[in-house]
């Protein structure tokens, strides 16, 4: 008991130790009762990737940008006859859209690059499998995840207005009042004459 000689009363450390454990006992414990109680995940949690099939144009950007090459896309072209048009239009039809979640590293690049909002993060994370091959989610399975996609977070009331909103406001105000809307985004200079 001679080890704590240089800090005040002898035995002070012992009492402090007891105090710490007693204080911790009276606080709520941090344990999460996970299987019984659903965890409260933070917004924008990266659980699994959902596919909104009708938004996909088979542009292949996601598959090309994927660092792991874990997105597999097959498609064919279909002719769509548009009445009144000179000739039939061509349209891409998705045959296969698979994401292999045994390879995916959840970087989210595919979701970032998608120009048409076909891919979304969802916080769902309970899709473990006993067979690694079952982690290859096809487009139906990916489509089912769409139900769990949370609504986008509300816009920050103090933040800059989105590009679309600013443009609409300028259009509504007419060509003369363009300067008022420009004050919010001084860097952007765009020829916005009323068409």
């Amino acid at each position, binding site marked *: 008991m001679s080890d704590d000689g240089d800090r005040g009363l002898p035995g002070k450390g012992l009492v402090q130790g007891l105090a710490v454990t007693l204080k911790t006992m009276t606080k709520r414990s941090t344990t999460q*009762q996970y299987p019984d109680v659903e965890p409260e995940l933070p917004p924008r949690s990266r659980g699994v990737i959902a596919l909104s099939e009708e938004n996909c144009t088979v542009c292949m950007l996601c598959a090309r940008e994927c660092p792991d090459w874990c997105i597999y896309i097959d498609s064919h072209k279909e002719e769509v006859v548009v009445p009144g048009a000179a000739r039939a239009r061509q349209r891409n039809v998705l045959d296969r859209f698979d994401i292999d979640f045994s390879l995916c590293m959840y970087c989210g690049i595919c979701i970032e690059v998608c120009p048409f909002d076909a891919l979304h993060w969802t916080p769902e994370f309970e899709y473990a499998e006993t067979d690694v091959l079952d982690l290859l989610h096809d487009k139906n399975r990916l489509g089912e995840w769409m139900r769990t996609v949370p609504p986008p977070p509300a816009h920050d009331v103090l933040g800059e207005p989105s590009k679309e909103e600013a443009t609409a406001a300028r259009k509504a105000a007419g060509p003369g009042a363009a300067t008022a809307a420009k004050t919010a985004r001084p860097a952007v200079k765009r020829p916005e004459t009323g068409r």
Partner: protein
Amino acid sequence: MPIWLELIVRVVAVVVAFLVLPLVVGQAEHKVMAHMQGRLGPMYAGAFHGWAQLVADGVKFVQKEDVAPGEADRRVFRLAPIVALFPYLLVLLAIPLGPNGLVAQALDVGLFFVLAVLGVGVLAVLMSAWASANKYSLLGGLRGAAQLLGYELPLVLAAASVAMAAGTLSLPGIVEAWNPWWLLWQAPAALVFFIAGLAEIRRPPFDMPIADSELVFGYMTEYTGLRFAFFLLAEYVGIVVIAALTTVLFLGGWHGPFADQLGWLWTLVKIFAVSFVIIWFRVSYPRLREDQLQRLCWLVLVPVALGQLVLTAVVKVIM
């Protein structure tokens, strides 16, 4: 009541206490330790906050194979857990629960008997250590023997101080003679007794013989199944016994409001309070090194206990 019926009732009561109290204390340890570490502890067994965890553990231990090492001294190896457990059962016989003879066996030399029987514990440690034919067991057992022999001295000296103050060796007699003023007068002895008692039952921070980070599990390394469970049970009964002895000798046993009707409750409340402190110490303090352990015993506890003896004698002579 015929004598044989009374005998059966007393023995059954002690056996029930022997089986129930350690489980309650063990469960309390699970939960208290968990919450002190910011956890929840057992939550599933028995559906409500894991109250049946130790029962489930017991069932698990019964199912396990009883393995004895090939080189082991079989008979001694098998006997050791019983020897570890049995003294505590005998001690419980002599501990008074309430006034008016609410004790399984009122002994005139109760204190002497209790201390003598507690001393058998070292035998179990040495038996299990030597018979296991395992170097870790042996090291743990020798550490245990050194510790138990060392701490026996302050334990007995502190208890002797109370016996001198009360003028009797009978445990109910000591509680009868107890006075709230003793809390102050016998405070050093109480402290010495409690700390030495912790070392006697090899609880952290005095668990050098077990020291799982150095000696695997000390003298219990080779034990499995039910015999291992006996050692664990002995640890929990040990908590109850040391808490009960501290209560009876230093905290006034059944003394409290309505002692005539609720004396037994006061004893139990005090036992559980002391048990809580024992668990609390385990959570708060790291294990003492072997040399620190011996220093604490011989350079602090023994002198304090001797000083207390002098103090007790002086006060006794003056008053």
